[in-house]
């Protein structure tokens, strides 16, 4: 089936099997390997990207369901060479160890801050509650997101 997707601002048209999962389309067809493919069972959130403006576990939707829609992956977070405050927060607060969960955590964090610019620690924990960090660095992930919230307006 022929589909067209707008990924991080660029248009991509491909002919795909309807059974192809969005995560595989993004990683294997488009070569955007920032989004990770972890549990494969909708539980870990390593594959979280945005479909339009809404985060989704991309191992749990088909690529054809994204036909005609916008997709944003972790590669689309930075503005040119300027990192998103969320990315800066993860740098400043040591928000990653192995980095496997990081792209999904960042996409969820960006979504949270877009809807709730001044989250509490509880809000952050609730937002990432469907995601797993196998290095169990939750403490620093939460700190990183709160750092981003506090530095959102900085130049």
């Amino acid at each position, binding site marked *: 089936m022929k589909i067209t997707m707008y990924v991080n601002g660029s248009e991509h048209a491909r002919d795909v099997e*309807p059974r192809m999962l969005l995560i*595989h389309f993004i990683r294997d067809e488009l070569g955007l390997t920032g989004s990770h493919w972890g549990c*494969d*069972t*909708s539980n870990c959130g390593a594959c979280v990207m945005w479909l339009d403006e*809404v985060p*989704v576990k991309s191992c*749990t939707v088909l690529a*054809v369901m994204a036909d005609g829609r916008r997709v944003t992956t972790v590669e689309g977070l930075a503005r040119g060479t300027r990192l998103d405050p969320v990315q800066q927060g993860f740098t400043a607060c040591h928000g990653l160890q192995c980095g496997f969960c990081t792209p999904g955590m960042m996409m969820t964090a960006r979504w949270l801050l877009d809807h709730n610019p001044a989250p509490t620690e509880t809000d952050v924990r609730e*937002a990432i509650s469907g995601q797993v960090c196998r290095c169990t660095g939750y403490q620093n992930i939460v700190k990183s997101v709160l750092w981003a919230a506090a530095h959102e307006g900085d130049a």
Partner: protein
Amino acid sequence: MQVPAQVEYEKASSVSHALSLLARYGPEARILAGGHSLIPMMKLRLAQPEVLVDVNGLADLRFIRVAGGELRIGTLTTHAQLLDSALAAGHFAILRDAERVIADPIVREWGTVGGSLCQADPSEDLSAAFAALKGTMIIAGPGGKREVSAREFHTGPYETVVGPVEMLTEVRLPVKAGAGTAYVKVSRRAGDWPVGAAGAALWLDRAGVITDAGIGLTALGAQHFVAAEAEDYLRGRRPGPEAFAEAGAIAAANCRPAADQRGPEDYKRHLAGELTRRALAVAARRAGWGEGTGLGERTP
């Protein structure tokens, strides 16, 4: 690596278009809503539909409104939309209680009310909530629409009355004065399916007598998700700790939980009693009963 088997894909543009696609492709066609139950099942090859009929474009099935003395919920409403609805929570706090603990915030953006009900997993939280509220399901088919009680909707695990060329379009919940509702769930970790859960709805008259009661049990082996004997016991009584404890004991005695990876049978039976008691206590308080009694105030 889990990948679905070969499948064809069609986008429906209206309810009647969806129904005609289902009719054209026959019994191996399946409706695709949020896909958050169906796609995992397809990846495990527990489901192998030949054709998917994607109904996500049917924006007119995404609504929550009050009409005709009922709260009406379109089946493409997502869990997140139901959770955020002040209208829904204002009438039935049980819906917010339940939605807060269904899956996680990301899954809730995609899973739909209709998908939850039609998946008919015995652990699906909304099935018990709507059974407690004595809702009505609206099903569209080639001959028009029909209504089925929420309590007759599920015919067994993963089975409903929805036929191969039919689609669930709406859930209707009767709005009556004197109602108080609540949902209490125990799960192993945040975002997980319930080990067990109970939903309660109580309707009190002005004298404080229970005129009607609805009790739904999730994942606890209750027929049609309902604790009917406990409801019968409560009708005509006054709310109170003894009445709620007894109703819990009746609910526990009449359900048939099965041991699985989430817990042994005796523990689940204990949960049936205790969660019923707690849900009733919170529901009664929300119906205006026993202000300041402290009963249930420490429960979630």
